[in-house]
């Protein structure tokens, strides 16, 4: 306790060690896997992401031209991004915002 006292006093008078979130938000690091997204125009519906996903959170429907991810089952490992042959999947560095209702993220490719 006595050895710690100077440190306690220093911490009491110095500025906060934490940020006043959400007023002050730090820029995310470049490599952060915060949120999975798709550029649906480039998707060829090969289902590789869905097969390789360890948590099975991606569903691909070739007939309906629909790609869907359950962001609450996703473990943000980024394997789908690595295996995608057309590089249409990518990770945003911003973390997913809290939501009142759990909804899957869906992308439908328009008819060409």
């Amino acid at each position: 306790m006595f050895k710690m006292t100077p440190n306690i006093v220093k911490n009491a008078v110095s500025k906060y060690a934490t940020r006043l979130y959400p007023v002050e938000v730090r820029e995310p690091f470049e490599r952060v896997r915060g949120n999975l997204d798709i550029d649906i125009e480039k998707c060829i519906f090969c289902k590789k992401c869905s097969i390789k996903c360890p948590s099975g959170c991606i569903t691909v429907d070739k007939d309906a031209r629909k790609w869907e991810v359950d962001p609450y089952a996703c473990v943000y490992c980024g394997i789908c991004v690595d295996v995608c042959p057309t590089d249409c999947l990518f990770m945003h560095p911003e973390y997913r915002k809290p939501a009142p209702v759990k909804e899957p993220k869906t992308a439908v490719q328009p008819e060409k």
Partner: protein
Amino acid sequence: MSTVIPFGPQHPVLPEPLHLKLTVKDEIVTEALPTIGYVHRGLEWLAQKKDFHQMVQVVERVCGICSCIHAATYCQGIEEMMDIEVPRRAEFLRVIWSEMHRIHSHMLWLGLMADSFGLESLFMQCWKVREQVMDVMEATAGNRVIISVNQVGGVRRDLSDAQLSWIKDVLNNLEKEFLALKSTFGDDYTVRKRTVGVGMLKKSSAYDLGAAGPVLRGSGIAQDMRMTGYGAYKHLDFEPVVEDGCDSWSRTMVRFREVLQSIDLVRQAISRLPEGELTARVKGKPEGEVIVRTEQPRGEVMYYIKASGNKFLDRCRIRTPTFANVPPLLEMLPGADLANVPVIALSIDPCISCTER
């Protein structure tokens, strides 16, 4: 007259649910019986449902704090079984991230230990210093705790020269701030009063009961699985950290010095990092049996993997260090003051999710 007092599964000092049934007589513990089974998730069973590549992500989730080392151990086992030679750069990168995990795990534990003997400021100070390592992991691997950098055959991410020099700068700063806490943990009157001579585990008992990791080294036995030279550890210079006190203070100091050792190991690995590929080609399916042993922050972890040539494994058995450290805990508790039970229980660094998988 004896009274039975339940300690846990919900207790302010316990990060995870461990239940101890304590028989006390006049505030002195005479007997302790442990119960686990509150957070069993059946991860080993998933080996029959997920293919052996996907199992990397499953074993990472056995324990949050040492996730990288779990995945590295599993990959090492599969690689041994399939005769894959991992590129040297990948081995070094695994060491860098593994040691980073050890640093953050020990700092987390030192904070919790400070909390267990009631020094909240020290707890917050430890976690404040720890945040720097978490930032390094988030910036280099993409996540703070479960970093998913390992894959069978190598690693998934590389570190650029700019990142390596940034890591060195961060570690220099972290070492400076961390060393400022040494006098508090080592010499402070209050801290010594709460830890010296508390939770005694004799050298012979530690050996007989099969203690692992810092609990064993805190009792004066120099055993560290990294000394066997798996991965890139054979190219690095270090000695196991040993303390002879056999008490909670010794275990604290072992972990404190291991943080400094890990910082040194990361520096060595960065300076000797070879150029080259990140992954080796993985062909075929695993077949056979293998046992891998590596050193985790809490001690030795053992993986037994059995496969019969298809994409699912037959068995993936994991023996985690906390499981080995529960019998020594039961040896430490009889004769202890009831007020010292939180300190003693925490001194083995219990990770119950690991133990139950």
